């Protein structure tokens, strides 16, 4: 590999005598504006907080508290056997909440399997959001009604969908933006590359949000990528990359809102990397003590998204004891309702197995449906 030199050297004479290089040698875009800043963007604890809208700050705070409670309740539901699995976003609530709050109603959200909270923060009924994880149906809601694509279990495969949808919307003349969420592990997948490349070539109104929570199950970022940051990857596609403190809800909201606005006015896609941390294990099936130490987790607890926002807002006098109590009570009400509704067994119709495979059932499926019908009838007679 060639050594890079910071000093400009005169080219050797033989090279100097060569004709000018063909135009293809010239970079098409100056990479400097595309490069992310070296340090993650932050707002909380800085002077910029003074410019933030207090109403927005309080909404962010309430949503974070509700999100934390939602994560705790869903995790408890796995322990009670009500959910098959729950990939928690405890510690990552700022990203989830900001993702939902950066979008207009007409925009679309493309969540990964970990992003149920983003869907709930966008207004989706928590029970509908958890249907996949409870196991009664793969998608518990009508994606068109909420403009939330199905939670994607395969990694990064929903990203090209976001590009295609945003592209189609623009072709139809609608100013719709798609926000696609992916984890740090997902950035290694081929679909991540293809989605970003398509988005940049088509200048599609898409925002990619990478929640870098440190681990792909157990594999740390250093074993996932050699890039200086995941946001750096944007440069190669010809789109701006932004690096943001993923636990700073105000900063994430600001960066995402700007990226969404840019996409909406025809400025093309943006790749945002939010640096955050998964406080819980990957899922209830994972033992996080095998791959990380408690001191690391403890350091991130100090940088908790709720704690840092609450402290700042309290110091500024934006948030008082009443506000804290109200947010906690609202979260508790949500959790109690969720608990109660999830305690009821869902009513399932086995004939649904054949209902939505094709627009019209094939002869083969009609035969199989008849077989199941007969089995069910025999069961009920027995």
């Amino acid at each position: 590999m060639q050594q890079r030199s910071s000093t400009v050297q005169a080219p050797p004479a033989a090279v100097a005598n060569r004709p000018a290089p063909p135009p293809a040698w010239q970079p098409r875009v100056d990479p400097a504006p595309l490069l992310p800043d070296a340090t993650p963007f932050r707002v909380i604890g800085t002077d910029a907080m003074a410019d933030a809208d207090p109403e927005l700050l309080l909404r962010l705070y309430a949503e974070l508290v509700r999100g934390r409670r939602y994560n705790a309740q869903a995790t408890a539901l796995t322990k009670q056997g009500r959910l098959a699995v729950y990939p928690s976003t405890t510690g990552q609530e700022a990203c989830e909440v900001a993702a939902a709050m950066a979008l207009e109603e007409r925009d679309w959200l493309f969540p990964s399997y970990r992003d149920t909270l983003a869907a709930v923060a966008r207004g989706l009924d928590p029970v509908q959001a958890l249907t996949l994880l409870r196991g009664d149906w793969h998608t518990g809601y009508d994606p068109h009604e909420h403009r939330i694509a199905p939670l994607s279990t395969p990694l990064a495969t929903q990203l090209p969908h976001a590009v295609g949808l945003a592209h189609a919307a623009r072709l139809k003349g609608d100013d719709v933006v798609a926000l696609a969420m992916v984890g740090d592990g997902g950035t290694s997948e081929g679909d991540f590359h293809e989605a970003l490349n398509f988005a940049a070539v088509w200048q599609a109104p898409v925002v990619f949000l990478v929640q870098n929570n440190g681990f792909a199950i157990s594999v740390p970022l250093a074993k996932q990528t050699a890039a200086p940051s995941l946001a750096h990857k944007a440069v190669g596609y010809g789109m701006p990359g932004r690096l943001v403190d993923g636990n700073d809800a105000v900063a994430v909201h600001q960066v995402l809102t700007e990226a969404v606005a840019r996409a909406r006015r025809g400025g093309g896609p943006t790749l945002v990397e939010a640096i955050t941390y998964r406080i819980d294990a990957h899922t209830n099936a994972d033992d996080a003590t095998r791959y990380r130490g408690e001191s690391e987790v403890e350091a991130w607890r100090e940088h908790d998204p709720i704690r840092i926002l609450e402290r700042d807002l309290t110091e500024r006098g934006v948030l008082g004891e009443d506000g804290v109590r109200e947010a906690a009570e609202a979260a508790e009400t949500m959790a109690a309702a969720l608990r109660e509704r999830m305690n009821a067994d869902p009513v399932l119709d086995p004939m649904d197995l054949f209902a939505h495979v094709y627009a019209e059932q094939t002869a083969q499926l009609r035969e199989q449906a008849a077989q199941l019908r007969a089995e069910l009838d025999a069961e009920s007679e027995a």
Partner: protein
Amino acid sequence: MTRATTVAKTVAAKPRPATMAQALQRAMRDAMAEDPTVHVLGEDVGTLGGVFRVTDGLQKEFGEDRVTDTPLAEAGILGTAVGMAMYGLRPVVEMQFDAFAYPAFEQLISHVSRMRNRTRGAMPMPLVVRVPYGGGIGGVEHHSDSSEAYYIATPGLHVVAPSTVEDAYGLLRAAIASDDPVIFLEPKRLYWSKADWSPESPAAVEPIGKAVVRRRGTSATLITYGPSVPVCLEAAEAAQAEGWDLEVVDLRSLVPFDDETVCASVRRTGRAVVVHESTGFGGPGGEIAARVSERCFHHLEAPVLRVAGFDIPYPPPMLERHHLPGVDRILDAVARLQWEAGS
């Protein structure tokens, strides 16, 4: 299929020679003219008109927004088509060659095929994946695969393969009109096959899933589809000299499968051979033979035989004639239908 798939026009036009490639192109043009939500995308489909010229002229007529040269990335092509379909468009994507489609398989299997199902019908996937498939054109490695076994093993997909110029038009119109995803296998060695055809008044199209008897016969049924149909018809002519009157059933569609037409034929003739280029082990022929055996056992005078490609990776072009099922191999199988118990 909820949309009209018949496109018979009242104006009578004189039939004239047309190729399968021209019929396919005409099908896309007519569909695009009638329905502004139909979009064509893929590598080289625009300016070049496709490496087989199947999309020739479409971009000129409908513009880059509707006929789009994409980056070279099959997962990206199909993945973005999924998003376009989510927003109400009807994408027709081209996979340049059969084996080039493999990078798109995750999109196909994890999303395209099951999107309707996982959303309880809220999010159908009305898209078509055109796959130029099969051998016999002297293509180098990765240009001649018959991948239909992978597609038919995936619930939620329709899998269609035309064998005639007329069907190429009709089936592609039906595929584009379908509210479900259709894998449209184009037998690339038949692209330049010609037939008298009236592009201005194409015949009415039957819905996807109907097989057709291409040749009536009494001694045995050849069950086949796509590029093997003309081979079977040739074999049937040759068999006449040896006293065999063969019936040839062209499936046209592997999913849905037309048990009715196939079994009616086998019950008439009492003998059956399944013919396809795809490998025999794990290939569609095994499924078809099993279905026929289950439904027509008492009518069968001999076991259902298969004439398929060998169970090998597709061979280099200088050897492919030894691999592809030809007339002689079909006739050998027909001879074996003079089966006696214990033999």
